């Protein structure tokens, strides 16, 4: 932080001020940590699941919800007062959540369809059992 203060006085001032409303901040912290927990599920699933299709389930769902929770948490944490400006910031952050709500399932579906139409990807349970044994 020291160097940042030296170069950008405006930024440093804003960092030092760093207000916030305490009860809202607590909710925000809780939401953020919850998001991290769900993202942990995704990360473990990405490593542990046996084949591409099941990994897709882990990634496509955990991604959406954890991002939503974390962004909502940060929207609450950074809210300084109830003025119009900070409300607009919250709405803007929630707009990101809305866009993700539309785009995430779409990209999941697009990748799934691509894999399904490509011949090199096996789908049967036998292949899965083989991979599990390995």
């Amino acid at each position, binding site marked *: 932080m020291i*160097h*940042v203060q*030296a*170069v950008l006085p405006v930024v440093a001032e804003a960092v030092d001020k760093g207000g916030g409303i305490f009860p809202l901040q607590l909710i925000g912290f809780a939401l953020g940590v919850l998001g991290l927990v769900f993202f942990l599920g995704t990360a473990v699933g990405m490593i542990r699941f046996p084949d591409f299709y099941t990994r897709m389930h882990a990634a496509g769902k955990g991604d959406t919800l954890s991002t939503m929770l974390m962004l909502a948490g940060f929207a609450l944490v950074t809210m300084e007062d109830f003025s119009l400006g900070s409300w607009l910031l919250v709405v803007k952050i929630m707009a990101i959540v809305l*866009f993700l709500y*539309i*785009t995430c*399932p*779409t990209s999941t*579906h*697009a990748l799934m*369809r691509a894999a399904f139409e490509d011949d090199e990807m096996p789908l049967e349970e036998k292949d899965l059992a083989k991979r599990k044994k390995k």
Partner: protein
Amino acid sequence: MKNLSLIPVLIVGALLVYAAQDFPEWGSPNSPASQSPVSSHFIANTGVDTEVPNMVTAVLADYRGFDTMFETVVVFIAGMAVLAILKKSGKKNPRKREFEVDAEPDLIVTNTVRLLVPVIQIFSFYVLAHGHVSPGGGFQGGVVMGASFILIALSWDLDTALARFPLDRCTVVAGLGIILYAGIGLLSMFLGGEFLDYAELANILPVSREMARYHAMLGVEIGVGLTVTAIMFSLYANLSTEGRLKGGL
């Protein structure tokens, strides 16, 4: 041989890491970049001269406006070069693959694109118009706008996108952007200043000299945005079809 080439790579890498120790600390006020008179001059004077809070935009579009103009011209020339080369090669060897596949558009993807393309376009206009107060500007806005047309081409097919933005109109719009940029520069020259000296525009606009620079920068950014939008889309349309403008990705 492959392993042998690892040795010079490692030596050069070690030398670079060794040399990196002499760098000034990150963000240190004693570094040469912070101590040069130019940057302190800009930090002190951009707000007074132009009333633009974002220094990067002020420097890009006003202090070194000549440079930015020719950067836009470079983008334009790159697009035209791709067009010219591909048009020629398309004529010479007509087609390697004889088949054109018309894949049916995916229902989910097309509906998502229907919902999102207007939002993307309004976002690109927002980025372009607020280049003065927040990061952004003509180039970024143009790229986002071009991406929205590419998205239409990807979800239906190229013909749908070309019906919205035909390629000959693309060329015209790209040229128009540069003409807008150079026109603002020439206008300020005719009003008695230097080329691209926006402050002279205060003679015809009902604002102060500082605000004239502010508004002229917006016009310049619009010019850059028009050129970049058109060139990005025509780049995609030409590259994906080898210049034939039908079928393709």
